[in-house]
């Protein structure tokens, strides 16, 4: 069973790689819109990548208002 920390780490690595941001700039409580410099369409792209990576379905309404990696990880962890 994957731990919450592993899930969070995977998300940070995936986001850093895909959006070409140095991994050390991303922190669990950081605002991913700001740190990744993404808009709503790119957020959908991230959501799709996360769904594929973790093999889960993430209804977008569950992410409404979510902007930090830690909360995002907890939403995913709840569906693993």
């Amino acid at each position: 069973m994957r731990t919450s920390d592993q899930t969070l780490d995977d998300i940070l690595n995936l986001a850093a790689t895909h959006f070409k941001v140095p991994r050390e700039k991303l922190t669990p409580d950081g605002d991913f819109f700001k740190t990744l410099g993404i808009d709503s369409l790119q957020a959908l792209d991230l959501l799709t990548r996360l769904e594929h990576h973790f093999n889960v379905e993430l209804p977008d309404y569950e992410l409404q208002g979510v902007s930090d990696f830690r909360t995002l990880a907890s939403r995913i962890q709840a569906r693993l």
Partner: protein
Amino acid sequence: MNKFKGQALSWELKDGVVEVRLHREPCNEIGSRTLEELEKFVAALDGASHDTHALILYSTLKSGFCAGADLRELYQRSQQMNRADAAKGVRHFLERVHRVMNTIDASPLTTIAAVHGVTFGGGFELALVCDLIIADKMARFCFPELRLGLIPGFGGIPRLKRDLGNGVVRDLLLTGRSFNATKAQAVGLVSQVVAEGEALEVARATAAQLKKFDRRTAIAAKQFIKPIPYEELRREIDIFCDLFTGPAVEAGLKKFVESTDAQPYLP
């Protein structure tokens, strides 16, 4: 029919396949310009030669296939007239859109939507008129209309009901959530899911396969298995126009148009 280059879309006929490229920034929103060019396309489609066997519809924009109706144009136009005139204008627009959609839906060609990224609202409805949907693994499908106080108006519900189980239709429509390509394939909406950036090439390969079959047989098969739900499509226009005059719509459109939220695309 051979070639056309417009502001919102272009097409080219080559080796019996018509390829329609959508290329209106930011994400192929369907407003009056796109509709005019789609009308031009379906008029030209009537004159397609007997050697033509397939149609591929795709987007050249990175953002996706199509984000749906041009809500900014809809809002701005409706602000320039009284409620009754705005409703009349919307009905006229929808009737034109439906004529285009119904013509592509009933086309004797085998039609393929090669989609990627955002395939929302009217963009989803445009894909639904095609016989096959080939999706890049990064495609997302969504009907976000309820957040605007509306239902999809370009024929989406009757066509979804034709193609999918009603439970899936209710999920998409009533929650407004989006599906990724894998989920869309699992529920029967998408025929093939392919790697990022490969949807068009796979659509071309599929179109090449279709060329091997007798056209008369392919047309008969399509007519048999893909009836067009004309009556429900008419009802959809009526329901949409009825809802359009309600106060929720103006508020919903205003909120979307004026939004500085980082997530305006999320329902």
